[in-house]
Every structure is written in structure tokens, then in C-alpha cells.
């Protein structure tokens, strides 16, 4: 017997993991006068040496299951403009299930930069390696897909629009392509005891999202000096939207786009960043209640400029 219905807990796990599995890299980026923060729900277009440790996520799935995630991610440049990404997440669910998510690996290449117009574009490939996480709640198959990242600051607007110049947008769009079209599981019918096979399609998904930022860092440096506490000069209020839309090999009833809208703020320190966002599910399939995400992020190129903070194979630092 074959069924194309998705597993009951799959949507919950997908929603809970959305923030951490759809977008493996969260590097910061500087182009011209603009600093793009290391956003939490989507990746930014930066390629540099950084470490997110820890990222803490608390979400409530559509079935009410609470999930706590503790994640890390390392971005390591191999040559200037090209990096590899390694990350993983330890998850703990309110039903007692816990363990590691699948390992995340990726590469990213800085494709284009325009300093006067504060534009950055990067491309990459992200993957989740099936079978490397806890079997209770992770896929046994891998997912891989191309990604495009972009960022645009609006500092090049005319001075008559000074109030808008601190704004910036970043975005990411990519695919998540399963290496296995369907997953077959075996069980016994609870009434008859007859063995049954259940096949669930593994959909290809479009991972997409964007952020809208208003940089008080930029405002203070380029438009109008901010009076008041020094803290204000380091903040970047941000709204992020991260979505996953099934686009191919979609099971019946599985066409719903999952995602969250995150509203929060980043504090830009000299060698680190602190990010804090509220996580708001866009629909019931994405989660039942608002969640929270917090991250401590280290700029390794600043902390260790002459060792692990620079590309392995020489070249001038950007």
C-alpha cells in the first residue's frame, strides 16, 4: 500500500528547523559604506571567516510540540571570496526526543560587489547530509541545492532622501533538492497486524526570503550623528521573512508554504554581533505560537586576523 500523505510530525519539524536548515550560512558583509548584519533566518551575501556560537531557537510546532535548538556554524574562507560552511544543531523537543540534526555543509562564492551602490551578490550550494542526525526526527536522505544571495544598501539615494539612506535589503533564493524521491517506511496495521508499506514523497522546495534593515550604524556614520546612549549607534533593527515552498514532487496536501516573519535587532560590536528576533509563523502549518531566536556571532577575521581568520591560501584580506 502506498500513501502520499506527509508524516504527521514532518511539518512541525520542518517549521522548527526552517531557520537553521534552509540557510546554512549567516556571514556578515561590508561593501562600501555598508555593513550588512549576519541575519538569522536567511543568509546574507557576505563571504568571510565567522563563527555563530551559539544560536538558540525556541519554537512551537503546529501540533504544539515545543522545540529548543542549540546550533553552531563555522564559515571558513579557503581563498579570498570563497568559503566553506559547516554547521549542526542539537534539538530538544517537549516530548522528550532529542539529538543532533543532520550535518549542514555548503560553499559560497562572492560573485559581485559594487561599493558606491552598496551591492553584494554571492552564489553557493547548500546541503544537508542525510543520516548524520538522530534517526527519530531527521531525514535519511540528503538535500542539496544552489543558492543566490544578494544585498543592496540605499546609501546612494540623493541627500534629499537622507532619511531613507540607512535602509538596506538582503535576500536569498535557492532550491532544496532531495537525493531520494520518496521515503518508504514499514509498519503493521494496528487492526489486522498486516505489514504495510508507506511511501512519502520528498518534495523539492524553493527556499526564499528577504530582510529589510534600518541601520543606525549607517545613520550615525553617514547621515546624522545619533545623540543619546552609545548603544543606539550599534543597532540595526531588522525584519526578516524566510519561506519554504514545495515546488516539485509535492505530495497531495503538501503545497503549503511554510515560513516565519522575524522581527528583531542586531547589535554590532567590534568583533562580534548579538542578534535577537521574535519568530512569528506565517500560518498554522508553520507553527502554533511565536518563538524566539538569539545568536552570538564572532567575526573571526577580526579576532584572529593572522591565523584562522584569514583565507587558508593567502591572498590579501578583503
Amino acid at each position, binding site marked *: 500500500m502506498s500513501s502520499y500523505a506527509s508524516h504527521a510530525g514532518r511539518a512541525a519539524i520542518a517549521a522548527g528547523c526552517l531557520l537553521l536548515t534552509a540557510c546554512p550560512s549567516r556571514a556578515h558583509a561590508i561593501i562600501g559604506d555598508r555593513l550588512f548584519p549576519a541575519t538569522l533566518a536567511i543568509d546574507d551575501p557576505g563571504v568571510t571567516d565567522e563563527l555563530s556560537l551559539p544560536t538558540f531557537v525556541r519554537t512551537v510546532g503546529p501540533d504544539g510540540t515545543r522545540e529548543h535548538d542549540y546550533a553552531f556554524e563555522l564559515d571558513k574562507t579557503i581563498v579570498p571570496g570563497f568559503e566553506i560552511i559547516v554547521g549542526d544543531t542539537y534539538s530538544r523537543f517537549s516530548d522528550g526526543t532529542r539529538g543532533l540534526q543532520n550535518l549542514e555543509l555548503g560553499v559560497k562564492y562572492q560573485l559581485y560587489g559594487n561599493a558606491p551602490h552598496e551591492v553584494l551578490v554571492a552564489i553557493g550550494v547548500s546541503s544537508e547530509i542525510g543520516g548524520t542526525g538522530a534517526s527519530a526526527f531527521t531525514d535519511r536522505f540528503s538535500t542539496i541545492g544552489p543558492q543566490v544571495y544578494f544585498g543592496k544598501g540605499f546609501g546612494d539615494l540623493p541627500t534629499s532622501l537622507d532619511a531613507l539612506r540607512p535602509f538596506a535589503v538582503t535576500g536569498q533564493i535557492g532550491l532544496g533538492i532531495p537525493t531520494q524521491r520518496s521515503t518508504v517506511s514499514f509498519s503493521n496495521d494496528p487492526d489486522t497486524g498486516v505489514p504495510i508499506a508507506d511511501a512519502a514523497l520528498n518534495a523539492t522546495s524553493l527556499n526564499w526570503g528577504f530582510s529589510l534593515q534600518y541601520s543606525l550604524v549607517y545613520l550615525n556614520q553617514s547621515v546624522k550623528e545619533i545623540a543619546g546612549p552609545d548603544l543606539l549607534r550599534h543597532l540595526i533593527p531588522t525584519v526578516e521573512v524566510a519561506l519554504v515552498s514545495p515546488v516539485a514532487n509535492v505530495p497531495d496536501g503538501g503545497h503549503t508554504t511554510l515560513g516565519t516573519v522575524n522581527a528583531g535587532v542586531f547589535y554590532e*560590536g567590534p568583533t562580534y554581533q548579538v542578534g535577537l528576533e521574535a519568530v512569528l509563523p506565517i500560518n498554522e502549518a508553520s507553527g502554533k505560537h511565536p518563538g524566539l531566536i538569539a545568536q552570538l556571532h564572532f567575526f573571526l577575521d577580526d579576532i584572529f586576523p593572522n591565523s584562522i581568520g584569514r583565507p587558508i591560501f593567502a591572498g590579501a584580506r578583503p
Partner: protein
Amino acid sequence: MNRLILPAALAATLAGTATAAAHAQLERAVPAVGSTVAAPDHIALFFSEGVVPGFSGIAVADAEGHAVKTGKPSGKGAELDVPVSGLRAGTYLVRWHAVSVDTHKTQGSFRFTVAP
């Protein structure tokens, strides 16, 4: 939960190490960014990190884009100064670039206005 101890310890270690030099970001300036002032005789920039004056610079242009003659940049620590003279009423654009003591490069620009 024990498997979380090592990452936590690493994060704490990095946090303790995170006082190293970094990209020099502009914290404040004299004249202040976006301010209207009497004609200044110098422009001073104060950064988040120490900068190397020999590899850093400040350029000033008037509203028409004509370069304003400035003196040689100087400074110490996180401050970078450049003398200017004869600024008439109008808006001026300051473009700066800085090399921090660990050789990271940053740049920026801002405007100020000299009151009539």
C-alpha cells in the same frame, strides 16, 4: 546536555578573546555627521579602533564636487585629523578611508554644512 559544554566553553573563550583590533568604524566626527556649524579649521574623526594615519585619509569636497584643499592627515590611536581652512557657507562632503592597526580597511562618507 554535556555535549553542549564544549561549545559553551569555546564561545566563552572567544568572547574573552574578542577584544582584538577590528574594522575601524566611525564613532563620531567633528564637525558632527549631518551637522550645521561655523567654519571649522580642522576635521576630526574618532573611530572604534586604532588607525594608521599613514594609510588613512580624509578628502573634502564642496557641494559642486570641487575638492577642498586639506593638510596632511595626522592623529593618534583612534583619532584621525586633517586641517582645513577657508570653508565658505555651504554643504561639504567628507570621504574617509581608514586602515586599522591590524590592516583592515574601511571607508565612509558624510556631509556637514557651514552656516552663513
